[in-house]
C-alpha cells in the first residue's frame, strides 16, 4: 500500500468516526467507496471530501445564537428615537444626557442585581448569553439522544453525550431499571429530577428579571436626581431649566426602554427556551418509563418520539434508521 492509499484510509477512517450519531449509517459507504476507487490519488481526494462532508454535518448541527434579538434591539432603538426625531424631537438633548444617565442607571442596576444574585448562580452576562442563544436542544440533538438511548441498552456501549444533566438522567434511569424499581416510582423520581434541572436553569431568568426591575427603578432615581439638580437652577432662564429637566427625563426613558424593551423580553425568551428544553429531559423519562413497564427499547424510543412537538419531530428516514439500528443491536 503506497502513501496516498495509506493516507486515504486514515482520512476516511477519521471521517467515518467523526460522523454525528444519526449519520453513522453513512460511515461504511464512505469507507467502501474509498476502497473501491482504484486510483490511489483519486481515492485520497475522495477521502478528503468525506472528511469535509463529516465536518459539514457536524457544523450543521451546531447551534448559532439567533440574530433575531439583536435585530429586535436595533429596530427598537430606530423606531423609538427615529420616531422622536421625525416629530421634531431634540436628539441632541438625549445624546448629551445619555452617557451619564447610562452610567448611573446601568451600573447601579448591575450592582443591585449582584446583591440579589446568589453565589455560584449565573451572572447577568451569562443570563444574557443564554437568552440570546435560545433553545438549547434542536432536531439533531433529539436524533442523537434517540441513538444514545438505543445504544445505552447495550451495556458495553459507552454513553458519550455533552449534556451532563441528560447523562445523569440516563444513568439514573438505567440504574433504576437494573434495580427493578416500580414504573410509577421511576416516573416520579425522574419527574422530580427534571423539575430540579429546569429550576436550576430558571435561575438565569430570575437574574434577568431582577436586572430589569433594577433598571426601571434606577431610571426613576436618575430622573429624580436630575429634577432635584434642576430645582437648584430655578432662577435661570426657562430654556436652561427646560433643557436640564429634559436631560433628567432621559434617565426615566432609558430605564423604561432598557427594562421593558430589552431585558424583560430577553427574560421571557429564556423562560420559553427552558420550557422547550424540558422536552429533551421528558424524552429520556418517557423512554425509561416505557421500558420499566416492559416495552423494548425500540418501542420506548418510538413512543418518546411520538411525544415530541412537530418542529422537533424526527423525519421518516431518521425513524427508519433508528429502527434498523435497534434491530442490529438486538
Amino acid at each position: 500500500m503506497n502513501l496516498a492509499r495509506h493516507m486515504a484510509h486514515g482520512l476516511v477512517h477519521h471521517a467515518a468516526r467523526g460522523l454525528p450519531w444519526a449519520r453513522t449509517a453513512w460511515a461504511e459507504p464512505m469507507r467502501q467507496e474509498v476502497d473501491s476507487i482504484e486510483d490511489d490519488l483519486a481515492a485520497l481526494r475522495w477521502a478528503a471530501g468525506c472528511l469535509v462532508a463529516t465536518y459539514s454535518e457536524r457544523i450543521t448541527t451546531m447551534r448559532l445564537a439567533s440574530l433575531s434579538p439583536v435585530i429586535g434591539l436595533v429596530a427598537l432603538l430606530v423606531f423609538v428615537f427615529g420616531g422622536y426625531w421625525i416629530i421634531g424631537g431634540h436628539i441632541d438633548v438625549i445624546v448629551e444626557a445619555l452617557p451619564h444617565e447610562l452610567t448611573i442607571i446601568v451600573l447601579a442596576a448591575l450592582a443591585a442585581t449582584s446583591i440579589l444574585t446568589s453565589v455560584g448562580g449565573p451572572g447577568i452576562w451569562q443570563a444574557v448569553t443564554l437568552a440570546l442563544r435560545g433553545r438549547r436542544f434542536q432536531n439533531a440533538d433529539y436524533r442523537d439522544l434517540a441513538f444514545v438511548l438505543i445504544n445505552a441498552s447495550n451495556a458495553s456501549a459507552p454513553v458519550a453525550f455533552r449534556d451532563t444533566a441528560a447523562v445523569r438522567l440516563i444513568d439514573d434511569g438505567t440504574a433504576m431499571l437494573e434495580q427493578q424499581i416500580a414504573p410509577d416510582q421511576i416516573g416520579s423520581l425522574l419527574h422530580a429530577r427534571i423539575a430540579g434541572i429546569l429550576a436550576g436553569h430558571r435561575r438565569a431568568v430570575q437574574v434577568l428579571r431582577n436586572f430589569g426591575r433594577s433598571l426601571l427603578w434606577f431610571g426613576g432615581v436618575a430622573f429624580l436626581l436630575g429634577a432635584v439638580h434642576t430645582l437648584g437652577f430655578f432662577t435661570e432662564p426657562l430654556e436652561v431649566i427646560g433643557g436640564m429637566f429634559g436631560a433628567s427625563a432621559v434617565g426615566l426613558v432609558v430605564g423604561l426602554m432598557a427594562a421593558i424593551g430589552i431585558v424583560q423580553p430577553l427574560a421571557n425568551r429564556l423562560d420559553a427556551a427552558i420550557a422547550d428544553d424540558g422536552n429533551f429531559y421528558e424524552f429520556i423519562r418517557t423512554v425509561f418509563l416505557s421500558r420499566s413497564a416492559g416495552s423494548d427499547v425500540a418501542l420506548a424510543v418510538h413512543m418518546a418520539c411520538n411525544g415530541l412537538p412537530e418542529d422537533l419531530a424526527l423525519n421518516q428516514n431518521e425513524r427508519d434508521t433508528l429502527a434498523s439500528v435497534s434491530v442490529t443491536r438486538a
Partner: protein
Amino acid sequence: MPRRPNMSKQTRLLLETMLEEPLTWRHGYEISKGTGLKAGTLYPLLMRLADLGYLASKWKQPDQPGRPPRHVYRLTGNGIELAREVAQENAKVPTGGKYALVPS
C-alpha cells in the same frame, strides 16, 4: 409528497443527473463523475435527499471477486417526480416577456 429540499444549484444538478437514468443504481464516485460534485458536497446532498425520502440506497455486490461491496443510489418515485419538476423549472425561458416551456 415530502418537503422539498433547499434547491441549490448543486441539488438541481444532482437531481437532473440522476433523472437521466432514473432506474439505474449508481455509486457515489460515478455520480460525482457525472455531476462534477466532489465528495464533500455530494455526501451532504445525498444525506438530505435520503432523509426526505427522495433517494433510495442499497449495497451492491461487486462484479469482480475480491472487490468490496459498494453503496449505490437511485431516485425514489418521489425523487423522480421532484427531478422532473426541477427539470421543467430549469427549462423555462423568457419569450417576448412571457414564460414558456422549451419543447423537448
